[in-house]
């Protein structure tokens, strides 16, 4: 029998180890697994590499992990959102490393990991500072940059609905990085607004359960 349901967020987060690479879904304030992040903050696990589009804002989400000093390194496309005070503080103090990645390259590096690819050539960033030191090639008459797959130990995902098989659907623009990150981690942990009693309509599944490790209901919506 397949049953990926886990009763509490604390239990769900237990597989996260010191120094893990953790992908966190979301964009801005939409689709962020706030419940799982809170549980990770309470767990006190540190030395984390966080892969996410942004680096938190205010006193919630990834900001809590930064405030607590649990983050050693951030890989993201846009760390400098209004109110990203904890990231800026840790960055300026030299307490957190930053790798800035163009947003589409970030998504595709994550997808490549989930799809079993070593990397890919992209015209994005060719000739810019973000391509320095990277292998390049002329393909179809254009300069292209070799970008490597980006793997994670853990992905923290926010879904709208889940079933016990781990199938997921998403609400509006809360989808963003969530399905692609679910593919790229060794263990994917999901908080869903609703965990269904029965199976989800197969045609409504956006992220198939094969990519999911556990699901926990967390009804709170931002």
């Amino acid at each position, binding site marked *: 029998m397949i049953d990926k349901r886990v009763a509490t967020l604390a239990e769900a987060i237990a597989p996260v180890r010191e120094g893990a690479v953790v992908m966190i879904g979301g*964009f801005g304030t939409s689709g962020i697994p706030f419940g799982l992040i809170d549980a990770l903050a309470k767990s006190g696990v540190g030395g984390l590499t966080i892969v996410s589009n942004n680096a938190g804002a205010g006193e919630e989400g990834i900001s809590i992990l930064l405030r607590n000093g649990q983050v050693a390194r951030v890989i993201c496309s846009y*760390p*400098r959102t209004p109110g990203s005070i904890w990231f800026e503080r840790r960055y300026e103090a030299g307490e957190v490393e930053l790798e800035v990645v163009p*947003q589409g390259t970030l998504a595709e590096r994550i997808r490549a990991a989930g799809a079993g690819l070593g990397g890919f050539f992209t015209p*994005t960033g*060719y000739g*810019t500072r973000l391509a320095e030191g990277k292998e390049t090639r002329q393909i179809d008459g254009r300069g292209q940059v070799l970008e490597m797959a980006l793997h994670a130990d853990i992905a923290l995902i926010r879904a709208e609905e889940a079933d016990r098989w781990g199938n997921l659907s998403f*609400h509006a*623009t*809360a989808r963003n990085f969530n399905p692609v990150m679910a593919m790229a981690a060794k263990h994917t942990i999901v908080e869903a607004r609703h965990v269904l009693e029965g199976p989800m309509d197969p045609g409504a599944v956006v992220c198939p359960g094969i990519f999911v490790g556990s699901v926990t209901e967390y009804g709170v919506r931002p």
Partner: protein
Amino acid sequence: MSQKMSALHRLSDNDLARRLAQDIPDGAYVNLGIGMPNKVAGFVPAGREVMYQTENGLLGVGPTPAPGTEDPELIDASKQLVTTIPGASFFEHSMSFAMMRGGHIDIAVLGAYQVAENGDLANWATLDEKHPPAVGGAMDLVVGVPTIYVIMRHTGRDDAVKLMERCTYPLTGLGVVSRVYTDLCVLDVAPEGFRLVELAPGNTLEAVQAVTGAKIHI
């Protein structure tokens, strides 16, 4: 200098956005950058159906929701609350950037710190190293979208030149800009450099050339 400046007649941000909006054709798929580019959507002439894409996974962005109908999980790239229009769709991030990089979006409208006469664009980082760099989706857009329109004020703070022979800020993309709309003029990026399309009402070429760091060809 003061004589030079007094001879300039600058369009307001709204009039500049209205001018650019005239060049968004019916049926276009368009990505609007954060800030001034976002204003363009409000000025597209009635009767044209335009699909706006936002990088965080929505094609068919509609206007700001009416009070009481906001959905906190329905936002655009500026993290502002939006709505959807008929025909809209949601999708995940790698597909969103496949739309851009794969050449499926027709036009992107972006802001800029600097544009060079060879079409180089600088709009993601300055030379200020104090702040962490942040690139977002700009580099993916400029390599994939065939028509890149830049909308910006012609000069920067303290009258700094923004249209120049070569950018001095870190580049977003090389040779990617098609056309620049400023509060003083519209310029095409042509093989010979900046080519004048039109001057904003009341300006002379001489006065606009004086605040431009590269030759304006006519």
